[in-house]
């Protein structure tokens, strides 16, 4: 276990280094400087600005500079919001995005695992078809359609929930979390149904039943541990998807999270902000993938014992 952990970490470091370098030089390829957008500034001002942001140095010097700052956790100043650093903006937006993602995952796991396990246990009955049909809807209705539809129904027609915001009105966290969580609930329901079906036919389940365990114990203690491994391995990549989903959900519901900052930075061509958040997102995703792989390994008795 531990050796796998360290091997994976050692693999992750050069990957992140490569991501940071590639992104840095990609952004240098972008046409135009960061300051020649809205209004033309005088050459002297431009020169001073370039000096202040160290943009007059050679690309190579800037790169070395950026990387050494990066190691200290300093992602540089934002080009669009003078006086604010990228690190500061990430630390402002991150808690909001994390909270949103946490509720979404919670909803997804509760809804998904429950309906998936139920569907597997009651295979080919009503209780199998209905949740799986709903899951198909969850997979086919994209987040950017689901969100507005929920707003239209619950926010505008029924007027029971706020249509936007985060933490300002009671209940304004419900629709965003539901929007983001629903698609994952659908995937998790399908994965847990498949995983459970595979496990339920195996010998150790028959043994557990033969021992006289109650059906509930068989399912909860024996079948779910193995049957839900696909769900655990899915959670790592799901974080990457959640991030993309947070771009949409935070835009729809006007939530001041990291996802919305990123989309705004992309529009404003705030290059340092794009660069910083890309590196940060990559690091986060690599980390969560590592975590979910290790959890899946640990849950599987065969790989747990052999290593």
């Amino acid at each position: 276990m531990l050796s796998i952990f360290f091997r994976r970490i050692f693999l992750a470091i050069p990957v992140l280094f490569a991501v940071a370098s590639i992104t840095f030089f990609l952004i240098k390829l972008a046409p135009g400087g960061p300051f020649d957008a809205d209004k033309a500034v005088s050459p002297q001002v431009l020169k001073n600005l370039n000096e202040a942001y160290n943009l007059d140095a050679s690309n190579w010097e800037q790169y070395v500079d950026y990387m050494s700052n990066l190691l200290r956790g300093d992602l540089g100043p934002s080009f669009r919001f003078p006086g604010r650093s990228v690190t500061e903006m990430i630390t402002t937006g991150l808690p909001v995005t994390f909270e949103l993602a946490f509720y979404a995952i919670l909803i997804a796991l509760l809804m998904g695992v429950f309906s998936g396990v139920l569907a597997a246990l009651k295979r080919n009955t009503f209780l199998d078809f209905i949740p799986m049909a709903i899951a198909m809807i969850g997979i086919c209705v994209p987040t950017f359609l689901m969100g507005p539809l929920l707003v239209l129904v619950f926010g505008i027609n029924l007027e029971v929930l706020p249509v936007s915001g985060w933490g300002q009105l009671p209940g304004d966290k419900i629709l965003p979390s539901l929007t983001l969580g629903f698609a994952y609930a659908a995937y998790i329901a399908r994965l847990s149904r498949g995983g459970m079906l595979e496990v339920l036919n195996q010998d150790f389940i028959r043994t557990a039943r033969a021992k006289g365990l109650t059906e509930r114990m068989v399912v909860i203690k024996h079948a779910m541990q193995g049957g839900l491994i696909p769900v655990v391995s899915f959670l790592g990549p799901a974080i990457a998807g959640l991030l993309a989903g947070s771009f949409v959900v935070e835009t729809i519901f006007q939530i001041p999270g990291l996802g919305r900052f990123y989309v705004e930075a992309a529009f404003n061509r705030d290059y340092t902000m794009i660069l910083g958040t890309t590196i940060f997102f990559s690091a986060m995703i690599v980390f969560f993938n590592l975590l979910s792989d290790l959890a899946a390994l640990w849950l599987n008795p065969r790989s747990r014992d052999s290593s």
Partner: protein
Amino acid sequence: MNNNSLWSDALYRLSRNRAAMFGGFILILLIFCAALAPWIAPYSYSYQDLNLGASPPSGEHLLGTDILGRDLLSRILYGARISLLVGFVATGVALVIGVSWGIIAGYMGGRVDSIMMRIVDVLYGLPFIIFIILLMVIFGRNLWLLFGAIGAVEWLTMARIVRGQVIGLKNQEFVLAAQAMGVSNFSMFRRHLLPNILGPIAVYATLTIPQVMLLEGFLSFLGLGIQPPMSSWGTLIKDGVESMEEYSWLLIYPGITFTITLFALNFFGDGLRDALDPKTSDN
């Protein structure tokens, strides 16, 4: 078992699967509508009836008009061209990269294989959506770049599937016989390996198309994909969201069209998988 009977068996199984046939029917219908859009659309996608503004569905405009007085049905039909085009072309890009990568890795084996698949593993773990956005920001929002960028992201699973298939094939007699006859690597790939893995490739390609269309919709929704005056279903949904409080039909009809298409593609892909590989279907 020869090649013909495999495909005709599959076709028979597919024709028995009602959901898949329905999906296939919807798809063919959509492709026709998209191809014939200039002839069957009641209006041009840019024709504005300024007297109308946003008007609800009526006899003259079956699905109503948008805030600029443009016929929604016509815009959905024209949008189908862009959405389906992105779906097929980007999947094609993914197919070419993924299949070549997988065949080479699987057939070469050894060091080449482990390096190539390690690269795939590493790429799997990266936030590609962000790189697509990055590319769109840096190089401008260009349709061909969009095809390339989406295709360049979606090939990874295809490479894994193809590699697995090729590894299963490469010790079989017909491959060894071809090797003994001194067949070049390229014709080995093209003549001997590729025809034998067409089934899984077809299945996975069908299932990639809806993912690609979702990705395009996502980018267009954020305003980073298709740019006006061109419109895809993603941009129509984006426009619909902006005015949904007063003019909900502008969100609902493009949304229904998009969702039905994704349903059809998924049903058809699942049916194709079950038909070509009866082992994997658990029902």
